[in-house]
């Protein structure tokens, strides 16, 4: 190793290893580069060590000049290495002489502009955030968004809103009627599956006909609202986030603001209201289709007559509250999905990656909130003796 430092490197590139050699006395040191500097080799770490240990041993010099051996072959690795060295020397206040370097290398060094002060600043700008504080920030933003929505809604009630009813109708069509096929399929299969699962258990007690009770009660109380909400979150909530996020990306939201048109009135209100009204309707539809799924199993697999199954269902649903409780939930679910989707869209960042993130988090957040709310509803209902 010492060999490398104080003698000049082998001539004619006999060894292709890149090397540095230092010569000169106490005050002015000459640093010579030799060998082959190439992106494909990996000797830089070693050289870095050599350079550091040289600096440690000799810190008394005031001036360092750089030159290349004739046989040296170099590419950007040398430029980067050299600019790092210059940075270190610069920071410790040494004089640097570059005059002996070839013109091309000098201009590359100039253009790279890798001065140590710049890179330090770049890192100083980055800070770590504590996740809990970020959560508080998010919560406060969401609350203020909710407040703006309430204000916009009251403007609508007073007839002062700028909401376009055409947008409302369009959102209602795309989140309501267009969702019918998927809602039909999912809720029919949900009813059917529940009937199969229930029939196996109920057969043990010779109470197979109670499959009708099981399916109808489960559908109207829970599964109808929940299934529709999950479909809506994945379908409509995501679409809202993507649509509004894209508008933000194209500065459409900014241009609304410059005309004094509130994006809440103009974009968020029609979408959320449409979903708020469509979700209960779809839930009612899903309840019926789910019961039809149960009926299919009851008549085709368990050999009940349609009338028998129907009468049993009717007696299970003797109270309308069973149905209303499900619809009540779905009203709230619709609102949650609409608000979360629009909020995430409005707060998407200004590049396409953050748009994808906004859509994903809109779906995840709304499904989480839906399940949490559903559980809270059930707890409240059972404490109030409503079940």
């Amino acid at each position, binding site marked *: 190793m010492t060999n490398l430092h104080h003698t000049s490197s082998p001539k004619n590139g006999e060894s292709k290893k890149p090397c540095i050699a230092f010569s000169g006395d106490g005050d002015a040191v000459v640093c010579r580069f030799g060998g082959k500097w190439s992106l494909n080799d990996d000797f830089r770490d070693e050289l870095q060590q050599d350079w550091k240990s040289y600096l440690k041993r000799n810190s008394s010099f005031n001036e360092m000049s750089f030159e290349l051996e004739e046989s040296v072959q170099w590419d950007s690795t040398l430029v980067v290495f050299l600019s790092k060295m210059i940075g270190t020397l610069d920071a410790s206040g040494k004089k640097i002489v570059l005059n002996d370097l070839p013109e091309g290398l000098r201009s590359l060094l100039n253009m790279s502009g890798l001065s140590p002060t710049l890179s330090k600043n770049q890192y100083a*700008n*980055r*800070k770590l955030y504590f996740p809990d504080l970020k959560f508080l920030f998010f919560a406060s933003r969401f609350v203020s968004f909710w407040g703006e929505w309430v204000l916009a809604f009251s403007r609508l009630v007073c007839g002062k809103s*700028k909401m376009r009813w055409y*947008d409302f109708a369009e959102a209602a069509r795309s989140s309501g009627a267009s969702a019918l096929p998927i809602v039909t399929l999912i809720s029919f299969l949900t009813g059917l599956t529940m009937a199969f699962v229930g029939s196996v258990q109920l057969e043990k007690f010779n109470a197979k006909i109670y499959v009708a009770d099981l399916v109808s009660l489960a559908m109207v109380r829970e599964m109808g609202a929940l299934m529709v909400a999950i479909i809506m979150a994945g379908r409509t909530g995501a679409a809202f986030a993507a649509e509004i996020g*894209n*508008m933000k990306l*194209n*500065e*459409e939201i*900014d*241009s*609304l*603001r*410059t*005309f*004094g*048109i509130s994006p809440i009135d103009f974009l968020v209100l029609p979408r959320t209201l449409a979903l708020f009204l469509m979700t209960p309707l779809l839930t009612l539809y899903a309840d019926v289709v789910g019961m039809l799924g149960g009926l299919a199993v009851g008549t085709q697999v368990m050999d009940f007559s349609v009338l028998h199954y129907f009468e049993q269902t009717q007696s299970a649903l003797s109270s309308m509250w069973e149905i209303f409780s499900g619809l009540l939930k779905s009203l709230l679910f619709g609102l949650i999905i609409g608000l979360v989707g629009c909020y995430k869209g409005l707060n998407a960042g200004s590049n396409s990656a953050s748009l994808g993130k906004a859509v994903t988090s809109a779906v995840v957040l709304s499904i989480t909130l839906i399940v949490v709310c559903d559980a809270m509803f059930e707890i409240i209902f059972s404490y109030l003796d409503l079940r």
Partner: protein
Amino acid sequence: MSEALEKVSKVLELKEVGLSYGDHKVLEKVSFAVREGDCVVVIGGSGCGKSTVLKAMTGLLEPNGGKVMVRGRDYWASDSVERSLITKEFGVLFQGGALWSSMSLMENVSLPLKTHTALGDEEIAQIASYKLSLVGLRGFENFYPSELSGGMKKRAGLARAMALDPKVLFLDEPSAGLDPLTSRRLDDLINELKESLGITFVVITHELASIFEIADYAVFLDAETKTLIDQGTPLQLLHSSAHDQVRAFLSRGNETP
């Protein structure tokens, strides 16, 4: 007396405005004034915060420091009613046109009119198609933004920005992406509007030809220090700016004569 006049003639004034996105500083202590009827051009290298200056001037971004004065009043100290009155005088053309994608060109231009005026539908339609023909888009009234080219979107955006007959028009790179002839026509349009209607312009542009054609006044933002380093008429800046990069910018990298 003359001081009072001076104040009135300043439509807009930035006083030591600073702005940052999170920890990332975009502007630092930028101060300049826009006088009534002038065309002020904001120039500077890419990433020097030109669009951010525009957003700070139009009330879209609240500065972290300094003041934005509109006709002598502090914009961010006014209440929301006053603010919306102030911004009603502004028209903004964004970089990509920023047309509302779910509406046809006609609806795009008429929405501000419907929102802020008591005109009847027929009148609004007439005004909207007049504005569209001003920018050479007659016959495209029922097209949607997705059916237009980039340059047409930009022109439609300009028509929309002019919808409410604004006193101040902010244009963010109006001629980027336009062919030389169309961009020349746009410059002529700007000069014409300035002369005939007395509209004040704040324009962000990179096009040297445009700058010398339209600008009464230019301010230069420096990308490195994030601040305003020089201001004056374009010719003053070109010939006698104390900063090398300003002269280089305006002479396209050639040394000044």
